[in-house]
């Protein structure tokens, strides 16, 4: 069986862009607040439904929809942090896990009530459009998602490394008390970080709505996969997420050659557990250790 390897690799790279985009929010919130945001799936799902309303019901351009959706969720994220999540910042980790899980359930129910459980798909003029590069067909939607993934990575690095808020976020992540001592308003910083994390999730959702069909249960498998990616990448760094996405996507694509495609997800989860146990710093940690020696 002669499989078109270059095409497989290209699609894996595009998939990596998708994986990265859907994982940044998770990594940011975890990195800064050590909170595993289970509501991430719900936000992606809501982002998808909001995109549906804008594009299908209001006829908006599909790539313009995220422009409206992302700021909306940014504010929603701030509100969520300020009034709900902030109360359990000092509680044991299970509290945040259960709290955000509860929030996710509520989000699902609201979607069921408004939209019913019907599977929705968004069809736009861009839906099936592709262009050929060297004989390999590249889907426009997936390319856009990949582009956004790269753009997000660059912007996030820029933001975290060179702006006051970004540096304040990193400082708070490193040491909350010390940050307060140097005059950082850690409460405000956390609100911003959470808001950005939620915004990133909604961005992923509104773009994925163009590629996948979805229903209120959407996001669950993406969330689980997101865990694998974030852990693989080292749990706290954006570059790590990008690297982790790439490694995972390529591993999954190549694994088709040797194992059943149905076992791809098993490989991801096995990697998740192994990485957690063996190299808690993820790939980035490994790389850093490598570079230090």
């Amino acid at each position: 069986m002669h499989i078109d390897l270059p095409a497989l690799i290209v699609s894996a790279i595009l998939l990596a862009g998708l994986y990265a985009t859907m994982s940044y929010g998770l990594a940011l919130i975890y990195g800064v607040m050590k909170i595993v945001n289970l509501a991430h799936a719900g936000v992606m799902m809501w982002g998808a439904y909001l995109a549906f309303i804008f594009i299908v019901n209001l006829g908006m351009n599909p790539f313009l929809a995220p422009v409206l959706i992302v700021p909306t969720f940014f504010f929603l994220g701030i509100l969520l942090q300020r009034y709900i999540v902030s109360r359990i910042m000092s509680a044991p980790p299970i509290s945040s896990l259960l709290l955000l899980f509860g929030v996710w359930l509520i989000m699902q129910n609201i979607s069921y009530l408004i939209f019913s459980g019907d599977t929705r798909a968004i069809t736009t003029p861009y839906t099936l459009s592709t262009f050929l590069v060297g004989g390999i067909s590249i889907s426009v939607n997936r390319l856009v998602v990949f582009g956004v993934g790269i753009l997000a990575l660059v912007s996030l690095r820029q933001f975290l490394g060179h702006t006051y808020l970004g540096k304040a976020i990193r400082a708070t992540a490193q040491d909350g008390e010390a940050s307060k001592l140097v005059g950082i308003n850690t409460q405000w910083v956390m609100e911003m970080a959470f808001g950005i994390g939620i915004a990133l999730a909604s961005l992923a959702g509104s773009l994925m709505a163009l590629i996948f069909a979805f229903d209120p249960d959407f996001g669950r498998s993406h969330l689980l996969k997101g865990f694998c990616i974030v852990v693989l990448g080292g749990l706290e760094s954006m570059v790590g997420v990008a690297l982790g996405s790439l490694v995972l996507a390529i591993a999954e694509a190549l694994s088709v050659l040797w194992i059943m495609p149905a076992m791809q997800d098993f490989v991801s989860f096995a990697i998740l557990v192994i990485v957690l146990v063996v190299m808690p710093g993820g790939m980035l940690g490994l790389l850093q250790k490598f570079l230090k020696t």
Partner: protein
Amino acid sequence: MRIREIFSLISFLVLAFSTLPLAEVMAQPKEIVLGTALPLTGGQSREGGYFKKGYELAVKEINDGGGIPIKEYGKNIPIKLIIYDDKSDNTTSVQLYEKLVTQDKVNALLGGYGTPLITAHTIVAEKYRVPYLNGGGATAAIYQRNMKYVFGILASIEKLAHTLMDWVSAQQDAGHLKKPLKISVMGENTSHGKEFRQGVLDKSKAAPARFQIVMDEPFELNLKDADPLLQKLKASDADVFLADARLADYTTIHRRYTELRLYHQIVSYGPRGSEKAARDALGEASDYIVSCNWWHKEVPTPAARKFAEKYAQTYHEPAEWFPALAYETVRVMAKAMEMAASLDKSKIRDALAKMDMKDSLVVGGRVWFKPNGQIDNDYVMMQNLPGAKVSLIYPPEVATAKAIVPIPKK
């Protein structure tokens, strides 16, 4: 300390349980109670919702006519329909069916939707000897457990696959397709998908001069990237592409199939492809897809047309096979009760076993059951045509057009 805690435990249990109402006894039944648990939330919520609409439409229609005539009481008795939500979870489904039988004291049970749910909760019907009829579980395995009280009006997926393959054979005999044909098949990793693939494999093994399987792959639900599968498909160099997928994965797979400009002389997603949601999601990319289903609204029999119109009028959306089969389930159950002339459960069960209903909206118009409780009727096959149209290509009695085989290249 421990005694106090045990005390609290037990008093709480007593309190909690006493919130349940006590049993009631009825002499002359003032209504016939039909109960069901459907997946209204969770992974199967779309189909569950359709079934609810179908059930409600049928019950309303019967009640508008006064109810079901039961000779033993000499009058028409209206139906009370109880629908619970089992959240697409097996344990909940079993629990709810137990409730329907014991607490709600249903006279008969209507089926749920989805093979795993049905396989699990049918044990309740058999346990309490309550007649159970479903239009939502097609897997043959459900009916292979020697159960006397379980009936279904969906022919098996295995037969669906066989019908599809037989139709391909007929195309070969008519000279539209060559012999042998190379077939690639993929199916979702559920019992539905497995049975579909097995059916295709069975027919191929039985006729190696006609069919050669060059690819056979299961895939996990909720695919994020169809590329690995489709690259394998491309490399398999097949003539015919068969798949079994639910709407979300069908969308992902076929969109990518189109983008990759793949081509096969026949493309079929089993029962999927001709319903409105599938057409909308793919647009003209879904043209010429062949599907094999238990019902379609274009079937020209009076019963099918009547239902299609009524459904469209009531719910303002085109009728699909889910509500059609649900609707018919109620009608068959009502007929069984009428034939039994009583609400005695074993009499209703016997009436179902002997059922021979004509003028039904199912393909072939006739409802009757094999000894194992499953119907064995025929399928209708459709082909999507440009312009969002659908033609019926099989069986000959209902066909509206000849199939376009092999499908044209773009």
